Protein backbone atom coordinates (compact mmCIF):
# COMPACT_ATOMS: atom_id res chain seq x y z
CA UNK A 1 0.00 0.00 0.00
CA UNK A 2 1.32 3.41 -0.81
CA UNK A 3 0.30 6.72 0.57
CA UNK A 4 1.85 9.88 -0.88
CA UNK A 5 0.88 13.46 -0.18
CA UNK A 6 3.18 16.34 -0.82
CA UNK A 7 3.48 19.88 -2.07
CA UNK A 8 6.41 21.63 -3.61
CA UNK A 9 6.71 24.92 -5.39
CA UNK A 10 9.88 25.62 -7.35
CA UNK A 11 11.23 29.15 -7.15
CA UNK A 12 10.35 31.52 -9.93
CA UNK A 13 13.77 31.35 -11.64
CA UNK A 14 13.34 27.56 -11.96
CA UNK A 15 10.03 27.96 -13.78
CA UNK A 16 7.73 28.49 -10.81
CA UNK A 17 6.31 24.98 -11.30
CA UNK A 18 4.00 23.87 -8.49
CA UNK A 19 3.44 20.25 -7.52
CA UNK A 20 0.51 19.10 -5.44
CA UNK A 21 0.38 15.34 -5.25
CA UNK A 22 -2.04 13.27 -3.26
CA UNK A 23 -2.34 9.59 -3.98
CA UNK A 24 -3.28 6.46 -2.23
CA UNK A 25 -3.37 2.95 -3.64
CA UNK A 26 -3.40 -0.61 -2.43
CA UNK A 27 -2.48 -2.00 -5.85
CA UNK A 28 0.82 -3.81 -6.22
CA UNK A 29 1.57 -2.65 -9.75
CA UNK A 30 0.93 1.01 -10.43
CA UNK A 31 1.51 3.27 -13.42
CA UNK A 32 1.92 7.05 -13.41
CA UNK A 33 0.70 8.19 -16.79
CA UNK A 34 1.04 11.65 -18.30
CA UNK A 35 2.98 13.99 -20.50
CA UNK A 36 6.60 15.00 -19.77
CA UNK A 37 6.88 17.76 -17.21
CA UNK A 38 3.71 16.79 -15.36
CA UNK A 39 5.52 15.80 -12.17
CA UNK A 40 5.73 12.01 -12.54
CA UNK A 41 9.50 11.73 -12.20
CA UNK A 42 9.59 14.16 -9.28
CA UNK A 43 7.03 12.00 -7.48
CA UNK A 44 9.17 8.93 -8.07
CA UNK A 45 12.29 10.78 -6.90
CA UNK A 46 10.48 11.93 -3.79
CA UNK A 47 9.59 8.31 -3.04
CA UNK A 48 13.19 7.21 -3.66
CA UNK A 49 14.64 9.98 -1.49
CA UNK A 50 16.37 11.79 -4.36
CA UNK A 51 14.14 14.85 -4.13
CA UNK A 52 12.83 16.36 -0.93
CA UNK A 53 9.46 18.12 -1.22
CA UNK A 54 8.81 21.17 0.93
CA UNK A 55 6.16 19.44 2.95
CA UNK A 56 4.26 16.21 2.90
CA UNK A 57 4.11 12.60 3.84
CA UNK A 58 5.24 9.41 2.08
CA UNK A 59 4.48 5.91 3.29
CA UNK A 60 5.19 2.62 1.54
CA UNK A 61 3.62 -0.40 3.21
CA UNK A 62 4.01 0.22 6.91
CA UNK A 63 7.18 2.29 6.59
CA UNK A 64 7.05 6.08 6.73
CA UNK A 65 9.84 7.37 4.46
CA UNK A 66 9.11 11.06 4.71
CA UNK A 67 7.07 13.13 7.10
CA UNK A 68 7.74 16.84 7.13
CA UNK A 69 5.59 17.40 10.22
CA UNK A 70 7.92 15.11 12.19
CA UNK A 71 11.02 16.32 10.32
CA UNK A 72 11.58 12.76 9.20
CA UNK A 73 13.34 12.06 5.92
CA UNK A 74 15.03 8.73 5.42
CA UNK A 75 18.09 9.05 3.17
CA UNK A 76 17.85 7.26 -0.18
CA UNK A 77 20.27 4.56 0.90
CA UNK A 78 18.02 3.48 3.77
CA UNK A 79 14.77 3.33 1.81
CA UNK A 80 15.50 -0.04 0.24
CA UNK A 81 13.80 0.74 -3.06
CA UNK A 82 14.98 -0.27 -6.51
CA UNK A 83 15.19 2.54 -9.05
CA UNK A 84 15.55 1.97 -12.77
CA UNK A 85 16.77 5.22 -14.33
CA UNK A 86 15.62 6.40 -17.72
CA UNK A 87 19.19 6.29 -19.10
CA UNK A 88 19.92 3.24 -16.87
CA UNK A 89 22.84 5.04 -15.15
CA UNK A 90 25.02 1.96 -15.38
CA UNK A 91 28.46 2.58 -13.89
CA UNK A 92 30.77 2.76 -16.92
CA UNK A 93 33.91 2.01 -14.89
CA UNK A 94 32.58 -1.30 -13.58
CA UNK A 95 31.94 -4.60 -15.37
CA UNK A 96 28.45 -6.07 -15.70
CA UNK A 97 29.09 -8.29 -12.68
CA UNK A 98 30.52 -5.43 -10.58
CA UNK A 99 27.49 -3.30 -11.46
CA UNK A 100 25.14 -6.02 -10.24
CA UNK A 101 27.19 -6.59 -7.09
CA UNK A 102 27.34 -2.87 -6.29
CA UNK A 103 24.52 -2.75 -3.75
CA UNK A 104 25.61 -6.02 -2.14
CA UNK A 105 29.05 -4.60 -1.52
CA UNK A 106 27.95 -1.40 0.13
CA UNK A 107 28.54 -1.34 3.86
CA UNK A 108 24.79 -1.39 4.49
CA UNK A 109 24.25 -4.71 2.75
CA UNK A 110 27.60 -6.22 3.69
CA UNK A 111 26.32 -6.23 7.25
CA UNK A 112 23.38 -8.43 6.25
CA UNK A 113 25.82 -11.16 5.33
CA UNK A 114 24.61 -11.86 1.78
CA UNK A 115 27.24 -13.57 -0.34
CA UNK A 116 27.61 -11.03 -3.14
CA UNK A 117 29.23 -13.46 -5.57
CA UNK A 118 26.50 -16.11 -5.31
CA UNK A 119 23.67 -13.62 -5.52
CA UNK A 120 25.30 -12.01 -8.59
CA UNK A 121 25.67 -15.44 -10.24
CA UNK A 122 21.95 -16.10 -9.73
CA UNK A 123 21.00 -12.74 -11.18
CA UNK A 124 23.40 -13.00 -14.12
CA UNK A 125 21.80 -16.35 -14.90
CA UNK A 126 18.17 -15.20 -14.54
CA UNK A 127 18.79 -12.13 -16.66
CA UNK A 128 20.72 -14.05 -19.34
CA UNK A 129 23.83 -12.00 -18.72
CA UNK A 130 26.18 -14.78 -17.65
CA UNK A 131 28.20 -14.58 -20.86
CA UNK A 132 28.68 -10.83 -20.44
CA UNK A 133 29.67 -10.79 -16.77
CA UNK A 134 33.17 -9.43 -17.35
CA UNK A 135 32.28 -6.97 -20.11
CA UNK A 136 32.25 -3.24 -19.58
CA UNK A 137 28.97 -1.46 -20.31
CA UNK A 138 30.22 0.16 -23.51
CA UNK A 139 30.48 -3.31 -25.02
CA UNK A 140 26.84 -4.31 -24.58
CA UNK A 141 23.60 -3.43 -26.37
CA UNK A 142 20.79 -1.18 -25.15
CA UNK A 143 18.55 -4.09 -24.24
CA UNK A 144 21.36 -5.78 -22.34
CA UNK A 145 22.10 -2.54 -20.49
CA UNK A 146 18.52 -2.42 -19.38
CA UNK A 147 18.74 -5.96 -18.02
CA UNK A 148 21.94 -5.05 -16.16
CA UNK A 149 20.24 -2.00 -14.63
CA UNK A 150 17.24 -4.11 -13.63
CA UNK A 151 19.39 -6.89 -12.14
CA UNK A 152 21.40 -4.25 -10.26
CA UNK A 153 18.23 -2.65 -8.87
CA UNK A 154 16.85 -6.01 -7.74
CA UNK A 155 20.09 -7.36 -6.24
CA UNK A 156 19.48 -5.83 -2.83
CA UNK A 157 15.94 -7.29 -2.67
CA UNK A 158 14.11 -3.97 -2.57
CA UNK A 159 10.57 -3.66 -1.26
CA UNK A 160 9.38 -1.72 -4.27
CA UNK A 161 10.74 -1.18 -7.75
CA UNK A 162 10.50 2.25 -9.37
CA UNK A 163 10.75 2.32 -13.17
CA UNK A 164 11.28 5.70 -14.81
CA UNK A 165 10.24 5.39 -18.48
CA UNK A 166 12.28 2.22 -18.83
CA UNK A 167 11.83 1.82 -22.58
CA UNK A 168 12.07 5.37 -23.86
CA UNK A 169 15.84 5.11 -24.37
CA UNK A 170 15.47 2.13 -26.74
CA UNK A 171 14.96 2.04 -30.51
CA UNK A 172 11.29 1.56 -31.40
CA UNK A 173 11.94 -1.79 -33.13
CA UNK A 174 13.72 -3.11 -30.01
CA UNK A 175 11.20 -1.72 -27.55
CA UNK A 176 8.49 -4.38 -27.95
CA UNK A 177 10.84 -7.30 -27.42
CA UNK A 178 12.62 -5.76 -24.43
CA UNK A 179 9.29 -4.81 -22.87
CA UNK A 180 7.98 -8.38 -23.08
CA UNK A 181 11.19 -9.80 -21.67
CA UNK A 182 11.28 -7.26 -18.87
CA UNK A 183 7.63 -7.94 -17.95
CA UNK A 184 8.33 -11.68 -17.77
CA UNK A 185 11.36 -11.16 -15.53
CA UNK A 186 9.47 -8.87 -13.19
CA UNK A 187 6.53 -11.24 -12.89
CA UNK A 188 9.01 -13.95 -11.90
CA UNK A 189 10.37 -11.72 -9.12
CA UNK A 190 6.83 -10.80 -8.03
CA UNK A 191 7.89 -7.38 -6.75
CA UNK A 192 5.55 -4.43 -6.27
CA UNK A 193 6.33 -1.69 -8.76
CA UNK A 194 5.53 1.79 -9.97
CA UNK A 195 6.19 2.57 -13.62
CA UNK A 196 6.28 6.03 -15.16
CA UNK A 197 5.29 6.17 -18.79
CA UNK A 198 3.42 7.93 -21.54
CA UNK A 199 3.05 4.76 -23.58
CA UNK A 200 -0.27 2.86 -23.13
CA UNK A 201 1.45 -0.44 -24.01
CA UNK A 202 3.75 -0.11 -20.99
CA UNK A 203 0.69 0.31 -18.81
CA UNK A 204 -0.95 -2.88 -20.12
CA UNK A 205 2.19 -4.92 -19.48
CA UNK A 206 3.34 -3.49 -16.16
CA UNK A 207 0.40 -2.17 -14.19
CA UNK A 208 -2.95 -3.09 -12.70
CA UNK A 209 -3.90 0.47 -11.89
CA UNK A 210 -3.21 3.91 -13.30
CA UNK A 211 -2.80 7.37 -11.85
CA UNK A 212 -2.98 10.18 -14.39
CA UNK A 213 -0.72 13.23 -14.17
CA UNK A 214 -1.22 16.72 -15.54
CA UNK A 215 0.57 19.97 -14.65
CA UNK A 216 1.77 18.83 -11.27
CA UNK A 217 -1.59 17.37 -10.22
CA UNK A 218 -2.71 13.76 -10.16
CA UNK A 219 -5.97 11.88 -10.64
CA UNK A 220 -7.34 9.25 -8.27
CA UNK A 221 -6.16 5.68 -8.80
CA UNK A 222 -8.16 3.78 -11.43
CA UNK A 223 -8.05 0.01 -11.90
CA UNK A 224 -6.95 -0.88 -15.40
CA UNK A 225 -9.86 -3.32 -15.90
CA UNK A 226 -12.32 -0.62 -15.07
CA UNK A 227 -10.72 1.78 -17.56
CA UNK A 228 -10.76 -0.86 -20.28
CA UNK A 229 -14.41 -1.74 -19.62
CA UNK A 230 -15.45 1.87 -19.93
CA UNK A 231 -13.39 2.54 -23.03
CA UNK A 232 -14.73 2.70 -26.53
CA UNK A 233 -14.28 -0.63 -28.31
CA UNK A 234 -13.01 0.80 -31.60
CA UNK A 235 -9.71 2.29 -30.33
CA UNK A 236 -7.41 0.08 -28.22
CA UNK A 237 -5.49 3.12 -26.91
CA UNK A 238 -8.58 5.01 -25.96
CA UNK A 239 -8.74 3.49 -22.46
CA UNK A 240 -5.82 5.66 -21.29
CA UNK A 241 -8.03 8.61 -20.47
CA UNK A 242 -8.98 9.78 -17.02
CA UNK A 243 -12.74 9.10 -16.62
CA UNK A 244 -13.25 12.39 -14.80
CA UNK A 245 -11.40 15.73 -14.91
CA UNK A 246 -9.01 16.43 -12.05
CA UNK A 247 -6.58 19.04 -10.87
Amino acid at each position, binding site marked *: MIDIRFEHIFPHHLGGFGLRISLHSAQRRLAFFGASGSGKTLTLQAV*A*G*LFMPENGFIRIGDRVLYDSSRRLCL*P*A*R*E*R*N*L*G*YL*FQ*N*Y*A*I*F*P*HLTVRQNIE*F*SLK*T*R*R*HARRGIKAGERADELLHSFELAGLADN*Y*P*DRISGGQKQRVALA*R*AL*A*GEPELLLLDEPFSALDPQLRGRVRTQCAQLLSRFAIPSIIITHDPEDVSDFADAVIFYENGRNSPCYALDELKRNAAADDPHEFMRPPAPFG
Partner: protein
Amino acid sequence: MEHMPDYALMSCVLLTLKVAGLATAVSTCLGLGLAWLMTCGPASDGTSPAKSIIDALCALPLVLPPTVIGYCLILLVGRRGFLGPLLAGLDIQLIFSWKGAVVAATVVVFPLTYRASKAALESVDHNMENAARTLGASEWEVFYKVSMPLAWRSIAAGVSLAFARGMGEFGATMMIAGNLPGKTQTLSLAIYAAFQAGDDSRALLLVLLTSFLCASLLILAEFLTGRRFSRNMRT
Protein backbone atom coordinates in the same frame (compact mmCIF):
# COMPACT_ATOMS: atom_id res chain seq x y z
CA MET B 1 83.85 27.88 -16.46
CA GLU B 2 82.71 27.05 -12.96
CA HIS B 3 79.61 24.92 -12.40
CA MET B 4 77.50 24.76 -9.35
CA PRO B 5 78.69 21.72 -7.38
CA ASP B 6 76.45 18.73 -8.07
CA TYR B 7 75.23 18.32 -4.51
CA ALA B 8 74.07 21.94 -4.41
CA LEU B 9 72.15 21.45 -7.62
CA MET B 10 70.68 18.22 -6.29
CA SER B 11 69.55 19.77 -3.03
CA CYS B 12 68.00 22.64 -4.98
CA VAL B 13 66.08 20.21 -7.21
CA LEU B 14 65.02 18.10 -4.25
CA LEU B 15 63.85 21.14 -2.32
CA THR B 16 61.86 22.29 -5.34
CA LEU B 17 60.22 18.89 -5.70
CA LYS B 18 59.54 18.72 -1.97
CA VAL B 19 57.97 22.18 -1.81
CA ALA B 20 55.94 21.71 -4.99
CA GLY B 21 54.91 18.18 -4.00
CA LEU B 22 53.74 19.12 -0.51
CA ALA B 23 51.99 22.25 -1.75
CA THR B 24 50.21 20.24 -4.44
CA ALA B 25 49.19 17.54 -1.96
CA VAL B 26 47.78 20.05 0.53
CA SER B 27 46.00 22.13 -2.07
CA THR B 28 44.57 18.99 -3.73
CA CYS B 29 43.06 17.84 -0.43
CA LEU B 30 41.63 21.30 0.25
CA GLY B 31 40.52 21.87 -3.35
CA LEU B 32 38.90 18.48 -3.74
CA GLY B 33 37.18 18.75 -0.37
CA LEU B 34 35.77 22.18 -1.13
CA ALA B 35 34.79 21.14 -4.66
CA TRP B 36 32.92 18.15 -3.23
CA LEU B 37 31.07 20.40 -0.78
CA MET B 38 30.12 22.76 -3.60
CA THR B 39 29.01 20.13 -6.14
CA CYS B 40 27.96 16.91 -4.42
CA GLY B 41 27.79 17.58 -0.73
CA PRO B 42 25.05 18.98 1.49
CA ALA B 43 25.54 22.54 0.22
CA SER B 44 25.26 21.61 -3.45
CA ASP B 45 21.57 22.39 -3.96
CA GLY B 46 20.74 25.45 -5.99
CA THR B 47 22.81 28.51 -6.59
CA SER B 48 23.39 31.08 -3.91
CA PRO B 49 25.37 34.33 -3.97
CA ALA B 50 27.59 32.87 -1.24
CA LYS B 51 28.72 30.13 -3.61
CA SER B 52 29.58 32.65 -6.34
CA ILE B 53 31.58 34.68 -3.84
CA ILE B 54 33.46 31.59 -2.65
CA ASP B 55 34.20 30.68 -6.27
CA ALA B 56 35.53 34.17 -6.98
CA LEU B 57 37.69 34.23 -3.84
CA CYS B 58 39.13 30.84 -4.75
CA ALA B 59 40.19 32.18 -8.15
CA LEU B 60 41.84 35.27 -6.66
CA PRO B 61 45.39 33.84 -6.39
CA LEU B 62 45.30 33.32 -10.17
CA VAL B 63 45.01 37.02 -10.87
CA LEU B 64 46.65 38.74 -7.90
CA PRO B 65 50.29 39.73 -8.34
CA PRO B 66 52.54 37.25 -6.45
CA THR B 67 53.84 40.15 -4.37
CA VAL B 68 50.34 40.81 -3.09
CA ILE B 69 49.91 37.16 -2.13
CA GLY B 70 53.30 37.20 -0.41
CA TYR B 71 52.45 40.39 1.48
CA CYS B 72 49.06 39.03 2.58
CA LEU B 73 50.69 35.85 3.78
CA ILE B 74 53.21 37.81 5.83
CA LEU B 75 50.35 39.76 7.37
CA LEU B 76 48.71 36.43 8.17
CA VAL B 77 51.51 34.14 9.29
CA GLY B 78 54.39 36.53 9.94
CA ARG B 79 55.84 36.92 13.43
CA ARG B 80 53.60 39.94 14.10
CA GLY B 81 50.89 38.60 11.83
CA PHE B 82 47.35 37.56 12.61
CA LEU B 83 48.26 33.91 13.20
CA GLY B 84 51.80 34.73 14.41
CA PRO B 85 51.24 34.12 18.13
CA LEU B 86 49.44 30.85 17.43
CA LEU B 87 52.26 29.59 15.18
CA ALA B 88 54.88 30.73 17.69
CA GLY B 89 53.01 28.83 20.40
CA LEU B 90 53.17 25.71 18.25
CA ASP B 91 56.85 26.43 17.59
CA ILE B 92 56.27 26.67 13.84
CA GLN B 93 58.52 29.05 12.00
CA LEU B 94 57.24 29.85 8.50
CA ILE B 95 59.11 33.01 7.58
CA PHE B 96 62.50 32.29 5.97
CA SER B 97 61.92 28.54 6.10
CA TRP B 98 61.02 25.95 3.46
CA LYS B 99 57.68 25.48 5.21
CA GLY B 100 56.89 29.07 4.33
CA ALA B 101 57.65 28.25 0.69
CA VAL B 102 55.15 25.39 0.93
CA VAL B 103 52.48 27.75 2.29
CA ALA B 104 53.13 30.28 -0.48
CA ALA B 105 53.03 27.63 -3.22
CA THR B 106 49.88 26.05 -1.72
CA VAL B 107 48.00 29.33 -1.94
CA VAL B 108 49.24 29.99 -5.47
CA VAL B 109 48.27 26.55 -6.85
CA PHE B 110 44.99 26.19 -4.92
CA PRO B 111 42.82 27.73 -7.70
CA LEU B 112 44.15 25.13 -10.14
CA THR B 113 43.32 22.10 -8.00
CA TYR B 114 39.99 23.55 -6.86
CA ARG B 115 38.78 24.47 -10.33
CA ALA B 116 39.90 21.19 -11.88
CA SER B 117 38.23 19.19 -9.10
CA LYS B 118 35.03 21.19 -9.32
CA ALA B 119 34.78 20.88 -13.11
CA ALA B 120 35.53 17.15 -12.93
CA LEU B 121 32.95 16.45 -10.23
CA GLU B 122 30.34 18.57 -12.00
CA SER B 123 30.84 16.58 -15.19
CA VAL B 124 29.86 13.30 -13.50
CA ASP B 125 26.30 12.30 -14.46
CA HIS B 126 24.17 13.00 -11.37
CA ASN B 127 22.07 9.94 -12.14
CA MET B 128 25.12 7.76 -11.53
CA GLU B 129 25.51 9.19 -8.06
CA ASN B 130 21.78 8.93 -7.39
CA ALA B 131 21.79 5.33 -8.63
CA ALA B 132 24.52 4.55 -6.10
CA ARG B 133 22.44 6.18 -3.35
CA THR B 134 19.36 4.11 -4.16
CA LEU B 135 21.60 1.03 -4.12
CA GLY B 136 22.46 1.70 -0.50
CA ALA B 137 25.74 3.61 -0.82
CA SER B 138 26.60 6.21 1.83
CA GLU B 139 27.75 9.65 0.67
CA TRP B 140 31.35 8.60 1.23
CA GLU B 141 30.84 5.42 -0.81
CA VAL B 142 29.20 7.46 -3.58
CA PHE B 143 32.31 9.65 -3.61
CA TYR B 144 35.00 7.01 -3.76
CA LYS B 145 33.15 4.26 -5.64
CA VAL B 146 31.41 6.39 -8.28
CA SER B 147 32.33 10.09 -8.43
CA MET B 148 36.11 9.67 -8.08
CA PRO B 149 36.55 6.79 -10.55
CA LEU B 150 34.63 8.86 -13.11
CA ALA B 151 36.38 12.15 -12.34
CA TRP B 152 39.94 11.24 -11.37
CA ARG B 153 41.52 11.75 -14.78
CA SER B 154 40.46 15.37 -15.05
CA ILE B 155 41.41 15.94 -11.42
CA ALA B 156 44.83 14.36 -11.99
CA ALA B 157 45.37 16.64 -15.00
CA GLY B 158 44.64 19.65 -12.77
CA VAL B 159 46.95 18.28 -10.10
CA SER B 160 49.89 17.86 -12.48
CA LEU B 161 49.31 21.38 -13.76
CA ALA B 162 49.32 22.58 -10.15
CA PHE B 163 52.57 20.73 -9.48
CA ALA B 164 54.22 22.36 -12.49
CA ARG B 165 52.98 25.77 -11.38
CA GLY B 166 54.21 25.07 -7.85
CA MET B 167 57.71 24.29 -9.13
CA GLY B 168 57.84 27.62 -10.90
CA GLU B 169 56.52 29.63 -7.96
CA PHE B 170 58.73 32.67 -7.43
CA GLY B 171 57.24 35.92 -6.16
CA ALA B 172 55.24 34.91 -3.11
CA THR B 173 57.92 32.38 -2.12
CA MET B 174 60.67 34.97 -2.27
CA MET B 175 58.70 37.36 -0.06
CA ILE B 176 57.83 34.83 2.61
CA ALA B 177 60.73 32.36 2.52
CA GLY B 178 63.52 34.47 1.11
CA ASN B 179 66.24 33.19 -1.17
CA LEU B 180 68.57 31.21 1.06
CA PRO B 181 70.78 28.72 -0.83
CA GLY B 182 70.33 25.19 0.51
CA LYS B 183 67.47 26.28 2.74
CA THR B 184 64.71 27.98 0.80
CA GLN B 185 66.28 28.36 -2.61
CA THR B 186 64.11 26.52 -5.14
CA LEU B 187 64.98 26.24 -8.84
CA SER B 188 63.25 29.43 -9.89
CA LEU B 189 64.94 31.38 -7.06
CA ALA B 190 68.31 29.84 -7.93
CA ILE B 191 67.92 30.99 -11.52
CA TYR B 192 67.34 34.54 -10.32
CA ALA B 193 70.34 34.34 -7.97
CA ALA B 194 72.62 32.96 -10.70
CA PHE B 195 71.47 35.61 -13.16
CA GLN B 196 72.00 38.38 -10.58
CA ALA B 197 75.50 37.03 -9.90
CA GLY B 198 76.24 37.04 -13.64
CA ASP B 199 76.74 33.27 -13.75
CA ASP B 200 75.02 32.81 -17.10
CA SER B 201 76.02 29.20 -17.69
CA ARG B 202 74.59 28.10 -14.34
CA ALA B 203 71.43 30.09 -14.98
CA LEU B 204 71.10 28.42 -18.38
CA LEU B 205 71.58 24.96 -16.88
CA LEU B 206 68.88 25.64 -14.28
CA VAL B 207 66.56 27.12 -16.90
CA LEU B 208 66.91 24.03 -19.08
CA LEU B 209 66.35 21.73 -16.13
CA THR B 210 63.25 23.62 -14.94
CA SER B 211 61.82 23.81 -18.45
CA PHE B 212 62.34 20.09 -18.93
CA LEU B 213 60.56 19.20 -15.67
CA CYS B 214 57.65 21.55 -16.34
CA ALA B 215 57.26 20.39 -19.94
CA SER B 216 57.16 16.75 -18.80
CA LEU B 217 54.38 17.57 -16.36
CA LEU B 218 52.35 19.43 -18.95
CA ILE B 219 52.69 16.51 -21.33
CA LEU B 220 51.43 14.24 -18.55
CA ALA B 221 48.44 16.55 -17.98
CA GLU B 222 47.70 16.59 -21.69
CA PHE B 223 47.93 12.82 -21.79
CA LEU B 224 45.48 12.49 -18.90
CA THR B 225 42.85 14.82 -20.35
CA GLY B 226 43.26 13.89 -23.98
CA ARG B 227 43.23 10.12 -23.84
CA ARG B 228 40.33 8.85 -21.81
CA PHE B 229 39.10 5.32 -21.70
CA SER B 230 36.06 5.09 -23.91
CA ARG B 231 34.23 3.33 -21.11
CA ASN B 232 34.65 6.35 -18.88
CA MET B 233 32.92 8.52 -21.42
CA ARG B 234 29.84 6.55 -22.31
CA THR B 235 26.80 5.88 -20.21
